[in-house]
């Protein structure tokens, strides 16, 4: 456990858990894209996932532990870092740090709060149970996820929250991805600029991928 007490050890936990979640959001985005194929796309996809039965819960528990580690060490490191500069400068110029890098704790907390809301909405159907795919089935008798997503996002307020959370995530990742590679020692003079750019591009693709759904619903491209 010496590893978790060390400054670098804890950052490595942050980096690895972060990268696992990046892989998850990439897979999630690709899965979401099936919504553009209409009810037969996303409902079939959701039915296939449901087919994994208890393995879904194994997967969820793994993701929950990964997330918990990331949140726990993220808050702990932030508190330690704040304590390391008790007196602030009257004038301080930022030369290399970015808005994204300085707001990691805040974008992180926004994502965490949104995640709870998102799960209550689309996974556990506590918010707006009327449109839940647990009670509505499509023509082929599958849970109607398409209806739930489209009706859910037709509400402008819901869409707004969704888009805001996606923007926070993209900001988090512009710093997070390259930061993870630096922490894992993957950066040298050659790879550093490439990884930084790739991280920003990846964050941009995820941003577009995720907000395309609420935008398509609001624009009426996706309708029920």
């Amino acid at each position, binding site marked *: 456990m010496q590893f978790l007490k060390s400054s*670098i050890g804890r950052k490595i936990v942050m980096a690895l858990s972060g990268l696992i979640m990046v892989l998850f959001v990439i897979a999630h985005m690709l899965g979401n894209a099936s919504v553009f194929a209409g009810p037969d796309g996303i409902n079939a996809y959701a039915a296939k996932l449901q087919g994994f039965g208890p393995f879904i819960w194994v997967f969820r528990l793994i993701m929950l532990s990964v997330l918990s580690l990331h949140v726990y060490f993220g808050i702990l*490191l932030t508190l330690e870092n704040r304590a*390391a500069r008790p007196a602030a400068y009257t004038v301080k*110029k930022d030369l290399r740090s970015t808005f994204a890098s300085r707001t990691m704790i805040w974008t992180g907390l926004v994502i965490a709060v949104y995640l709870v809301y998102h799960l209550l909405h689309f996974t556990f159907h506590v918010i707006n149970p009327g449109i839940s795919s647990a009670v509505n089935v499509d023509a082929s008798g599958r849970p109607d996820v398409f209806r739930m997503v489209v009706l859910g996002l037709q509400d402008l307020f819901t869409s707004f929250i969704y888009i805001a959370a996606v923007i926070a995530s993209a900001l988090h990742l512009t710093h997070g991805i390259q930061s993870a590679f630096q*922490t894992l*020692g993957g950066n040298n003079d050659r790879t550093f600029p490439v990884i930084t750019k790739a991280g920003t591009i990846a964050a941009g693709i995820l941003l577009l991928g995720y907000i395309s759904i609420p935008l398509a619903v609001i624009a009426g491209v996706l309708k029920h």
Partner: protein
Amino acid sequence: MNLTLFVWRQKGPREPGRLEQYSAENISTEMSFLEMLDVVNEGLIRSGREPIAFDHDCREGICGTCSQVINGVPHGPQEKTTVCQLHMRNFKDGDSIYIEPWRAKAFPVIKDLVVDRSALDRVIQSGGYISVHTGGVPDANAVLVPKEDAEAAMDAAECIGCGACVAACPNGSAMLFTAAKVSHLTLMPQGKVEAARRVCVMTEAMLKEGFGNCGNHYECQAVCPKGISVQFIAKLNREFIKAALKAEA
């Protein structure tokens, strides 16, 4: 030229401090920043006031003693330049200049702009050395060092230990300093023997002294008077991972 200075004045470690306003008059562009402060101090002494205390020694950019945050940037506006090598031609007549000490929990203020940087010495003491047998001086070429390794070690060894990296870091972390020391020793064959232990004890000592954790903001490299690269932090991380895997095995 004439300037308005806002300088952090603090009588002692436990006294409250505040910014005080001074005017620096008839300053020549040829003066260094420290010479400008010397002129201001002479004026203060003549009028019976306490001169501004600041750290300095070599005044030629090699000892790392000078340490001032000038308009929000450690060592001031010129890249890869210590305060003592910063010249007044970087400023304009009528400018206002804010001068503050390094600010970090691990660097308590002793007086005005002077801070206690012995925390960095203790990080070095923890593992910033190599162990060798005493006795006759070995032949100069007895241990061969590849050119690239020697170059990289020299790049890291450029660190003069001024602590600007800590002063600039939003997290008050001394990671760039520690990384430079670990890299410079570990790149050499003589330093490889203790590599695993060194990276662990030095990063641990850093945390114990009250420095923060590296958040990969890279402010440190931007203000380093020697331009030490954050790639050395990546190298430090690799050394740590190697050490951790070795400890597992």
